[in-house]
């Protein structure tokens, strides 16, 4: 894995495909959304707009409330930028990285590794490859 040049206090914990390239720094607490009930509850919590949300699949409709509410960023474990979610993230102008593989974090009930809820992550979408970074102190480095 090739990491982008980062401030020394950040380490890369995930890599995927950027939907849109941007030099804007996007940072926020991550939230894993595993069901429609999770999505509804989180969108109505008042915390969504400050957060970066993570889902498994790359389809549009599962994340529809997140797109509509306006989250800070979108991450998925599956899917491509040409998918419907990629297209809608582009239309809403929401930073999005798809098919992210994480190297550290907690394990989901399906065995996937993802950052723990609340971890402050930073998104780097400056290139075709998108990166998810955390503070070295949070990653235990």
């Amino acid at each position, binding site marked *: 894995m090739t990491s982008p040049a980062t401030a020394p206090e950040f380490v890369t914990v995930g890599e995927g495909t950027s*939907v*849109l*390239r*941007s030099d804007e720094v996007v940072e926020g607490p991550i939230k894993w*959304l*595993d*069901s*429609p*009930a999770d*999505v*509804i509850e989180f*969108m109505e919590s008042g915390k969504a707009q400050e957060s970066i949300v993570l*889902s*498994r*699949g*790359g*389809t*549009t*409709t*599962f994340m*529809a*409330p997140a*797109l*509509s509410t306006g989250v800070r960023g979108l991450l*998925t*474990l*599956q*899917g*491509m*930028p*040409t*998918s*419907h*979610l990629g*297209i*809608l993230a*582009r*239309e*809403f*102008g929401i930073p999005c990285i798809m098919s992210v593989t994480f190297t550290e974090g907690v394990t989901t009930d399906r065995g996937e590794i993802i950052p723990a809820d609340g971890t402050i992550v930073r998104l780097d979408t400056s290139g075709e490859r998108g990166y998810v970074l955390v503070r070295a102190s949070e990653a235990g480095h």
Partner: protein
Amino acid sequence: MSNDTAPLAALLERYRTVYEPGSAGDAQVRALLRSDVTDLHADRLRADSLTDEELNDLIAYCGWNVWDMLGKRATEGESGLIPRQEYETIAGVEQYSSYPALFELITDAVGAEGLIEMGATARREIGTKVNLLHAWCCCMPLLTGRGFALGLGLIEPGERRAELAEALQFSRRLYRGMWGEDGQMFATGRSYRSPLLAGTEWLDRFVEERVELDGDRRAFYTTFNASTQLLAFLLHMDCRLGLSDSGPYLMPDGRVLIVRDHFLHDPAYSWFDISSDLPHAVTQALFFGPPEGMEFTVNDLSTTFTDPPAYLPYLSAVAVYARDRWDTPVEQIRPLGEAEMDSITRRSREKTMQLYKKFGAMSREELVDYGVQMYVVDMVLPFLRLAGVVDRAVEELNLYGRSPLTHEAYDKLMDPATAAEVLPRVLIGGFGFVPVTGRDPLAPARVPTA
């Protein structure tokens, strides 16, 4: 049938490991066809049916076209809300079963020339589902459905030759009307450009009625675009039937125009009651002032892609319209002012959340049923309506029902593991597009391996 395998990655790179994506692949594939079936000459549209050679050639080309459109998205991943893979495959089998008879019903009502004239609606109107996507959908899902039935071992490749040969001629006639000229059938053979309104008064009207945008106004209009687009996706069960772009059009001032429809209401589907206070369609004429060298394409799914991908920052002017009902006369299509746009944006967001909650409370089987209905009905409904045969399609041909073959496929395709295995083999490996008779003009289909 081939038992050859190939790594999935290789099959995503090139169709059947041989044919490129894009215009290069179009040229490769067409060079191997034995007929000129993808070339829509008026004299070849009078016959009611394709020859064996034409049928097999068109099936072969469609296999590449579907891969080019969808192959890279076949790895979209699962949906936590709407089980799209399951309903797409089940609907495809139903379309293979039912569409030939539905197309025959329409053709008997309007004739060959009437079909071509019906396709020409796309060159006269905005806010209509008589568009390239729906023409593509009269062709491809029927063939992919055949592919899924083949993949499940429910049918043999040689079955229903006569029905398929007539059904694909139906699509060719629609396409000829849409393009308004002889030439390639699909956008893949037209450099991915779909300027259906070129030369019409619509372009002059868009120029005259456009609103030039500054920073704040751009945000207002892009929010309208995104919010109505999202609702259209959700209403249409996470597929693209609720959206349609045409273009790109190069304007006299050097800007690039894309004309975009979002479909927000239709009485044909029970769950659309939630949006009964919205127009049937909103249309945006989107003017862009892109940097030099930026490429705009509109593909067979009526979807715009740009290179580089960020295009909305270059939005510089918009004209917006509403078509209140699907049968509102085109003369009554009206401009939308910003106050009404603001209201539509707000209501679209509210309805998105309401519909999401409704779908979130439904069972998987119910959602699949809605999805099958959307695919099977919506793809042919615009043409049934123009032919005046919707009631006959419902009463005589069971438009909202399911065939015995579909019932047979249902349980298998409701198993996520089966659908996830069949889709790549049919669409990416090419097994769904084997010839009805004789030799495959293309390299053998291959079973994807990890």
